[in-house]
């Protein structure tokens, strides 16, 4: 598992819109070493054990992309909250507190650019308070 923020350009559907994956993993003892014994997974052969139960917020203003990406993430085993704007993304994060591990952002969100959302998330999640408005 990775520590800190990593920007990956994710284009799982080969669509024209690019998506940015923001990985925020805090070190937790339960994740430790993810050794994977053969035969242990599962009901869903396509799901990755590291993704199972992973809480994700997906932000995309396009309903079609949102639907498909959400399903894709769910197939991986993630628990997905889908929102359609940067603001909704931020409020979903604040109510979920620390349980959200992954935020998938469309770079072109209405009102607030994807990068700005990510910057705000970073500021909120850093060790120092107060919360940024």
């Amino acid at each position, binding site marked *: 598992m990775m520590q800190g923020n990593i920007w990956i350009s994710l284009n799982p*559907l*080969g*669509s*024209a*819109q690019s998506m940015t994956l923001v990985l925020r993993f805090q070190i937790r003892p339960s994740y430790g070493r993810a050794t994977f014994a053969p035969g242990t997974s599962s009901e869903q052969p396509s799901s990755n054990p590291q993704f199972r139960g992973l809480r994700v917020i997906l932000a995309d203003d*396009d*309903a*079609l*992309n949102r*639907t*498909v990406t959400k*399903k*894709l993430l769910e*197939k991986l085993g993630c628990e997905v909250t889908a929102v359609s704007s940067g603001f909704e993304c931020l409020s979903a994060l604040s109510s979920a507190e620390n349980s959200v591990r992954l935020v998938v952002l469309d770079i072109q969100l209405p009102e607030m650019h994807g990068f700005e959302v990510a910057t705000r998330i970073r500021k909120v999640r850093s060790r120092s308070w107060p919360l940024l408005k």
Partner: protein
Amino acid sequence: MERTRLRRQVALTRQSLFDQGFLDEQFIQLEDLQDDANPNFVEEVVTLYYRDSARLITNIEKALEKNSLDFNKLDGFMHQFKGSSSSIGAKKVKAECTLFREYCRAGNGEGCTRTFQQIKKEYATLKRKLEAYFQVVRQAGPAETACWPK
């Protein structure tokens, strides 16, 4: 048996959509996402596509009617439309969208208008074909949606 006949019809119809170039691998990606939890996922996504993109088509149409064309705006609309079309594997539609965007970049209004007519044609044809396809899928019954020959 009726079921077998229907299943065969589904398979043939589906294959022809690929063979005739209407759909590409992206459609298969959608099929792979379909499961017991969402047994009609593909049809739902396609329905969503046609619903959402209708608005884009109207916007592009209006933008093309202007005396002085805003190519940036047109390109922006088309970028979105192409993205959606790509997501459902609409191969021919996507190809025409690419051509449209090239005309936008070249500032060629006539090329845009001409290509847009072609886009609408392909878009409508695909809609008809997919509607017919899903109808057969529904007739064949739920078991059919589960696994496809790759």
